[in-house]
């Protein structure tokens, strides 16, 4: 391996890593606020890329039907929930939030399907279509279990991966897609060439990480999320609604996933089930950060990207083995640095 190749692999790895950064930040955001280890998160990334690809091919994106299915389920659950508690007057709010709101982008996409639109409008629409998926899943499957143990929530979220990949195959088909590149410039820096797509990925990761930081530090909603992640009971006592914060966390994370999907789809062919592996790679990054630290996750995710890039140069068919095996030394280091046995209750049954 020459230094030139190493440099190219490094840049390539950092570009892929920057996508894992965005996905990893979303995972940590969801975990810290809701305690859900959201394994199907990668599926949202894949769905976002597939949505954009369908629009570019002037096809009806399957996301519309996916949203309609999820919104219908969420509405049924809202209705049952409020009737059960004998507070039908609260139903309207739930129906608007989980029924009407997600259907707005779906309706727009349905009406404009087949029309040629400027690329950035398509991108915005794709993001708007994908963003409600997270909060809808949260409402349908996870909120009824909000008080369950971390382990049980993890098992539920693993069960959800089955459902989401099934829905993905149903609505997007088995075909793989790649979107048109967003930009097409090539830069030369000495002996290294760099595509503008790479730069765009890097810049997006930086900008959105920064936006997330600003949101957490300088807005009331961001502070509420932070408060919830530090102490749920305390946050509740000062009037922060847990249902509201988890919906917001899922919405933000879903947005991050949607953006990641848009960025990754021009460089990777996405299938309905590609998300599982993307999500798990981001998890490896997030676990390097202990699933709690945002900067730790960013560094871990970049490292995963670079490792993957070098591993695929060494032996492309074994790159997944290398990336997932990375977790073993990471976990070993974590367990050695673990001073105290954690007294967390490891109950599966509630």
């Amino acid at each position: 391996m020459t230094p030139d190749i190493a440099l190219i692999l490094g840049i390539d790895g950092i570009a892929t890593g920057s996508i894992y950064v965005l996905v990893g930040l979303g995972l940590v955001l969801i975990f810290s606020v809701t305690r859900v280890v959201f394994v199907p998160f990668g599926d949202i990334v894949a769905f976002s890329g597939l949505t954009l690809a369908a629009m570019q091919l002037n096809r009806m994106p399957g996301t519309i039907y996916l949203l309609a299915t999820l919104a219908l389920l969420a509405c049924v659950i809202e209705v049952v929930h409020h009737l059960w508690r004998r507070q039908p007057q609260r139903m309207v709010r739930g129906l608007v939030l989980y029924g009407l709101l997600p259907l707005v982008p779906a309706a727009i996409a349905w009406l404009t399907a087949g029309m040629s639109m400027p690329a950035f409008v398509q991108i915005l629409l794709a993001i708007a279509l994908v963003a409600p998926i997270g909060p809808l899943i949260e409402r349908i499957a996870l909120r009824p279990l909000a008080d369950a143990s971390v382990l049980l929530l993890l098992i539920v979220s693993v069960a959800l991966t089955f459902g989401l990949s099934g829905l993905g195959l149903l609505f997007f088909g088995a075909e793989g897609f790649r979107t048109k590149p967003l930009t097409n410039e090539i830069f030369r820096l000495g002996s290294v060439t760099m595509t503008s797509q790479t730069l765009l990925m890097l810049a997006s990761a930086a900008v959105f990480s920064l936006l997330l930081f600003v949101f957490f530090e300088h807005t009331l909603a961001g502070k509420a999320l932070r408060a919830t992640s530090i102490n749920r009971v305390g946050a509740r006592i000062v009037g922060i609604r847990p249902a509201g914060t988890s919906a917001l966390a899922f919405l933000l994370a879903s947005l991050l996933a949607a953006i990641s999907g848009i960025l990754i789809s021009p460089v990777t062919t996405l299938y309905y089930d590609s998300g599982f592996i993307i999500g798990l790679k981001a998890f490896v990054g997030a676990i390097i950060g202990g699933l709690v630290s945002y900067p730790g996750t960013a560094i871990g995710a970049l490292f995963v990207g670079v490792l993957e890039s070098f591993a695929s140069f060494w032996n492309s068919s074994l790159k997944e083995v290398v990336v997932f095996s990375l977790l073993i030394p990471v976990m070993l280091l974590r367990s050695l640095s673990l001073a105290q046995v954690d007294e967390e209750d490891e109950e599966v049954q509630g």
Partner: protein
Amino acid sequence: MSRTTAYLVTIAMIAMLATAPLWVAEFTITLLNYIGIYALVVLGVVLLTGVGGLTSFGQAAFVGIGAYATAWLTTAQGASPWLGLVFALVVTGAVAALLGAVTLRLGGHFLPLGTIAWGLAIYFLFGNIEGLGRHNGMADVPPIYIGSVSLEPNSAIYYLIWVMLALAMLLVANLLQSREGRAIRSLRGGAVMVESLGINVFRVRLITFVVAALLAAVSGWLYAHMSRFVSPTPFDVRMGIQYLFMAILGGSGQILGAVVGAALLTVLTNALQDILPRFSANGEQLQAIVFAVIYVLALQFARGGVMPFVLQFVPRRRKPPAASGEPLPRRQMPEAGRPLLTVHGLLKRFGGLEAVSRVGFEVAAGEIVGLIGPNGAGKSTVFNLITGVLRSDDGTVNFLGADITNANQRRIARAGVARTFQHVKLRSSMSLIDNVLLGAYPRTRAGFVRGALRLDLAEEARARAEAQHQLDRVGLGTEAYDLAGNLPLGRQRILEVARALAADPALIIFDEPAAGLSRPEKAALAELLRGLRKEGVTVLLVEHDVEFVMGLVDRIVVMDFGSKLMEGPPASVRADPRVQEAYLGSVV
């Protein structure tokens, strides 16, 4: 359902299974074979996740290692399938021990995430090794022979599968009733209590993990020689996830739940494959969605699975007869008056706060010493430093002449220090006597193999007699087989005392034993402690209840603001103005 009916139903079911190849269709036998093969894996998941509380999504990878090991040895090397079984067990056991050693120290959600990751890694590895046929897999795996009888027909290997399953279930059932089995059952709900009893949590976790992997390896071996072909697909992490859900649907924690869960999911998959294509061209996709819905609903509404529902129709097992047998050998108590515990210059900082600053005191054998002080005086920190839960920043702790400063909880327990907890730590789903038997763990020897093969019966009887004796002694003897969780708080504290006594300790340290006890209960506890003193057991009480302490102890050590205020006999402590000020505030 009466006991007789239950027996008849069981016998009828076994008879039906035994004669199945004679009267059911070939296809049903195939289905039953798969159920048996899956149930072996799920049995491991039940042991690991249901009983031991360690969640693994990666069992399919172990099935794969077992299947590939035997396939390689019997095709590439031409060895006998029976040698293949040994090889499969050795390879799988070694990989599991290695993976377990690395990941099992991490509890909570890291372990299951880790199992997904290495489950995927092993799966991708199968598909990329030249010698294992890459993604095409390995064909022409030979069938198993017993003597000259070929087990190639489905109806022949059927018997091997179900006999192996029955054997595995029997061994696991035996194991769970043994000394190590109780340790596995105690894993759920935090490690501090388990370690304080002298049980090596990591070792128990690791062996349980390897046992589960070995069950998976047997399943893989059967699979390879039944289908006579191995490829990576059946060992995907998705299958690993399904094994976990089989255990949950069946009723994790129940041995029979393994068969019920495996049967339920296999039959359901089969039914869905028949039904769904009639409704839609996307049958396969719908199947995954149906499963997800079932899993999520089951986890929301029926976390116990099917077994608890079945078990309510089955009569409860009759209580075992009161244990009789020679009690366990007791330790030689140190001579009264000899220094037993010497604490010198103990120091603990939490950040900038000195919670314990240079505390020293001595406890002589045969004494009852009280450690008292107002809230926040540092009593509990001293307690945790002595028992090895916290590490001190300076100072020494000596016990029976040995330095136990910063030793781990387990070593301290085995040296002869037993403890109770301020917030009672029991296993509420275990019986009283099982909880007390946990205390006797360091006094007994039987390991996993002896437990599974029931070679431990003599020792078990002695340990049981010991536990029953301790329960009788604290007045809980008649309830020995009730669940600990059903006791009121005060009696749970008493149960912890019995558990501590079962360890035959030289020193017992009680953390606020009188808290939450009624007046008569306190009097009974004080009487029990006096009885211990007569037997030569030394007692250190960390207590808030001054009245309880004053009437009982020989000597008192008073702490305030992290330092030792004074020590002396109860009367002089009571008269000391500094103590009065610490408790009541300054008079001036």
